[in-house]
């Protein structure tokens, strides 16, 4: 192989240098120009290729590398989608919890309204019955008035008012000193006006059954008038006493 030949002397080495200079000496022949052109193209290619690789690392990547990158990004997308689904589930459960809270709150508000009406702390309205018992002779006893109230309650009266006093669970009806009645400490003179919210078509017959509340008022010497009203408003309210000794069992 000629490539491994070693020049034996300085003479040969000098000849090598001379050959190089001779070859490199510019000669304007066509072949030399073509050689120059090829070298120009080579230089251009090197520079462009180097620039290209700096420009975009993906362009020079092999197929396997691109596949690996694609695979990696696919896996990344998968994991992100998993995370997304997880977050969606969390969001859904939180929203469901919020809806439950809202439902519980509206149920509690409804219950509060019911209890407020029962306890008599708020005004109430609805259709009902307007009962007037006039007792000019003072012969209608407390028991008879109480019987009327009981009959109204039995017939489904939800809110009751005697005179200016709202009737609640703890209401007492007692006899007054001068023949009137006393409702929860408030003396009410005749005629006694009882207003009841409830179904008048049920309450009115209940009062008027033979031998019932209406008959007992008449037989005691009073007059009993009853009037159904489509829109009755009961404005009398009670202050709620804070329980001092009892506590809610939890």
């Amino acid at each position, binding site marked *: 192989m*000629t*490539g*491994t*030949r*070693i*020049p034996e002397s*300085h003479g040969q*080495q000098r*000849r*090598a*240098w001379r*050959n*190089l200079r*001779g*070859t*490199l*000496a*510019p*000669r304007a*022949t066509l*072949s*030399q*120009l*073509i*050689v*120059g*052109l*090829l*070298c*120009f*193209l*080579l*230089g*251009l*290619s*090197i*520079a*462009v*290729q180097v*620039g*290209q690789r700096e420009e975009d690392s993906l*362009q*020079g990547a*092999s*197929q*396997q590398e691109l596949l690996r990158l694609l695979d990696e990004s696919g896996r990344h997308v998968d994991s992100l989608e998993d995370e997304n689904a997880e977050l969606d589930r969390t969001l859904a459960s939180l929203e469901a919890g919020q809806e439950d809270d809202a439902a519980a709150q509206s149920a509690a508000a409804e219950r509060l309204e019911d209890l407020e009406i029962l306890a008599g702390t708020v005004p109430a309205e609805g259709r009902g019955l307007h009962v007037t018992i006039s007792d000019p002779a003072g012969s209608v006893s407390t028991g008879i008035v109480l019987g009327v109230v009981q009959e109204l309650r039995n017939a489904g009266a939800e809110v009751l008012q005697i005179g200016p006093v709202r009737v609640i669970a703890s209401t007492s009806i007692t006899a007054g000193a001068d023949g009137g009645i006393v409702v929860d400490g408030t003396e009410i003179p005749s005629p006694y006006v009882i207003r009841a919210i409830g179904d008048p078509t049920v309450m009115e017959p209940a009062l008027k059954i033979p031998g019932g509340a209406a008959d007992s008022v008449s037989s005691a010497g009073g007059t009993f008038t009853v009037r159904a009203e489509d829109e009755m408003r009961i404005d009398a309210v009670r202050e709620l006493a804070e329980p001092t000794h009892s506590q809610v069992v939890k």
Partner: protein
Amino acid sequence: MIAIIGLLLGVIIGVVLQPDVPVFLQPYLPIAVVAALDTLAGGLRAALDGAFDSHVFITSFLFNVLIAAFLVFLGDQLGVGAQLSTAVIVVLGIRIFSNAAAIRRRLLRS
């Protein structure tokens, strides 16, 4: 001398203008560059031996570049593009090294 000037001119123009490589050439350009470098080293060695022939240089330059590009193309078609590219690069690299060693021995023996 014309060859060296051409080489420098090419590098300078390439760096300054940064032209885009056509897409169909992109896979072949790196291998073609290595093949051309191999031919250049061979030509330099021939020049030291006093046996440089422009015609031989031109034909071997063009042939090496074309064969290298064709091998890459063939490898891509056969599905072994990466391996064949590596093989061509290795062979050309060995040739460049042996040529460079010969050139060094002729010029720098002392």
